[in-house]
């Protein structure tokens, strides 16, 4: 008999509404889904379908208006900002479409930041930063600032930063959206590497190369769950 797989993410009736002036816009409507540990999930859907909002809710960057969300065994609905910060730092690695590196920190400082925030020992941080920069092929750019890197390089630094604390779940929001084919290929290789290392990866993307890696594809349409092909 097959072992029941452990859940990494589960949502129940997840709804998110934004207030724009006097208008209320519901971006996610009643989303119920389950994502297993060590799975590779792709979230797809047209622009404005709620992909980024769903990732933000899973990453604890945003809170749902209604419904329940549990990530890595933690129910996130009623948690305060300090808890969510701690949670993001320890359990989640986030890769943004716009890279979002801290422009005032160098490459190695950007990668070290989440570890510094968890007060890891300096020796561990130095070693981990070196390892991660070698993994993403940027060991020779350690002391550069983000403004001195190309888009692809910045995205690879963002991946290295997301992996710094060895998080249980990695969220990537259209990681190849701003990259050319060559750089996109390097990101796909990084994602493959994460998959082979048993990480739970959730990627919002339109990229076919990434979709082929998926164990599970969740499609959103106008904020609703259109399909969930496990």
């Amino acid at each position: 008999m097959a072992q029941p797989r452990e859940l990494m993410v589960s949502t129940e009736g997840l709804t998110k509404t934004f207030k724009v002036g006097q208008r209320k816009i519901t971006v996610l409507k009643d989303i119920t889904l389950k994502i297993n540990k060590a799975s590779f999930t792709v979230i797809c859907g047209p622009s404005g379908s709620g992909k980024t909002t769903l990732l933000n809710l899973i990453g604890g960057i945003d809170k749902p208006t209604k419904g329940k969300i549990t990530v890595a065994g933690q129910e996130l609905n009623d948690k305060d900002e300090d808890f969510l910060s701690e949670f993001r730092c320890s359990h989640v690695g986030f890769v943004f479409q716009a890279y979002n590196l801290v422009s005032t920190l160098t490459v190695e400082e950007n990668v070290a930041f989440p570890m510094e925030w968890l007060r890891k020992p300096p020796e561990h941080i130095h070693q981990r930063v070196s390892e991660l920069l070698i993994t993403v092929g940027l060991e020779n750019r350690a002391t550069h600032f983000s403004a001195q890197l190309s888009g692809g390089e910045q995205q690879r630094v963002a991946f290295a930063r997301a992996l710094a604390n060895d998080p249980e779940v990695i969220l990537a929001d259209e990681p190849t959206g701003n990259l050319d084919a060559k750089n996109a290929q390097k990101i796909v290789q990084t994602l493959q590497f994460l998959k082979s290392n048993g990480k739970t990866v959730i990627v919002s993307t339109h990229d076919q190369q990434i979709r082929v890696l998926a164990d599970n594809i969740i499609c959103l349409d106008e904020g609703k769950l259109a399909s969930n092909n496990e």
Partner: protein
Amino acid sequence: MSNSAGFPVNDLLRRKTQTGLTVTTLTLSVASTLFLLQFSSRLGLGLTSQTSTLTLGLTAVLGQFLLFTGVLIFIIGAVLTSISVFLMMSQRTRDFALIKAVGCPNSLVGGYFMTELLTVTLVSTILGIVFGFLADFVVAVLVFSSYILPILWYPILIFFTFFVLAFLFGLQPILKAAQLSALEALSPVTYFGLTEEAKHKPLSRRALTWRIALRSLYRRQTATVRIIFLLSTVFILLTVSVAGGIIAGDTSISSIEKPIGRDTLAIGQVAMINQFKLELEKFSQKTHENSDFNYSNQQYAIPYTLIEQLQTLNSVALVDPRLVLHEEVAEQPSIALGSSTADTYDVGGYRKGQSIVIGIDPALCSGSWTIKGRFLENNAITEAVVGDSIAETMYVPNFKEGINISDPLLEGISIANGDFKIVGVVVDPINNGFVTYVQIDGLQRATGIYHNNLLIVKLSNSTGRDIAINEIETAAREYGLAVYDLNLSVEKNAAFLSSTWQTIMFLPSAILASAAICLVAYMMLSVNEQLQEFAIIRAIGAKPNIIVSISAIQSCIVLLSSSGIGLSFGTIITFIILIANPVFTPLTILVISGWILAALIAMFFLSLYPAFRASKKSILEIMI
């Protein structure tokens, strides 16, 4: 509305927060400058109307103080205005490039931004002038209980200067952006300004927070340097106002206390005592002495036997016999040598004035003076020391009368039949500084009046004050003389001067408020500019209080560097330029330090307000 005017106005309205911040900062800057200048001008007018009290020397010191404060207030306002506009327009460099990149010609984009700049500066300066007038009106009614229309060239000067400054400083980043190609302007290297490689390895979480704070300051180095310059000027002004105000207050109070001294009594005929009291209290009250009073009357003479008797009393430390007269005095010009021995030039003229002339024995003198030059030497019967009001009226250049050079210390004074060389100028409350001191023998020889008409007696510490006064009164009564406790007049004069300084010290409070507004406005712009960065840091796991930590570090650096510069220069200016012979005690230093420390702490906490507000927002709110 035409399209060219419509875009800038809509753009400003769309960016409500930034536009609001800049307009508020500029309005406050113009309003506070106008208000402070008008307020100090009202204080100055108040002082001028008090010339029947105060000595002319002290009025000049207060006037100088207010003038200097006024100039600094104007500079602060001008710098703040230029910084605000510069920051606002610098933040638009990227937008300028974006509009250019989508095909809009350089001249049209330049026109849009120029219109925005003009709109913001014009609206802010007009609002500033209106609010400045309103604040002045409210304070004038509350503090001075009446409203006189202020000097009208102040608002005109402020309006044009600030408008031109704001426009020129705002124009700089627009011109810079116009010269950049769209590609250059959009490059993160140009935008962030960070191109050097970092040399140090990350050490700790605290070190990273410091690095983000320091590098953000460095990235905005033009703005940082300007705000440090602005706050340095604020701190110079604050030091001059607080330290200068307190020390100048103490110094001037000491200057009017010292000539009489504490624990001194005056002994003389009742009429003479009353007249002397009126001469002494003229400094603080609009009283008039009896102009027909005959000082030289023989009946006011003090018997020598009383002087001898008083000198034997244990309760008496010193008996200072004086001859007090009211005389017409005349300037005695002189010739001074130039740089080469062949050169000579005329000093002074033949001006005349009225003065209380006091003959004293320098060896027995109970008072001491704040003096320019020196006091009378023993037996120097042809020397004189004049009060500051005599010096300010009879010994100043008067070009209409052809007196191009005048200096009391190079000239002389004629009293009755005697000529005296002036050796010092003193601050003295008697007759509001229209007073001349000469050696008593010299005065007696010049006037032919060979008696004393007033005794100043200094009490010793050995007996109780009341017992001593009682003893002296008993002795004086035997000769039909009255005793007056001079402490009463000294206290009245000191209280008056102290209240004058307290009114002036309202300025530092207003300046502090203005400085705090400057800093908060700067921190608002600074936090606003770093919001995206803060959101990223928080998204990767930092707690909300990191925003406050980073802002606190930045605010500390800005405040400490500017207060360091400001306090150093302020102290130099206070001591070297404004107060020649400062009087300060450990308590004075404590009070000044307390004021400045309180100002620094208040400004520091106020400056954190924008960061606290930002830390309360959610990550997505900030990112949007």
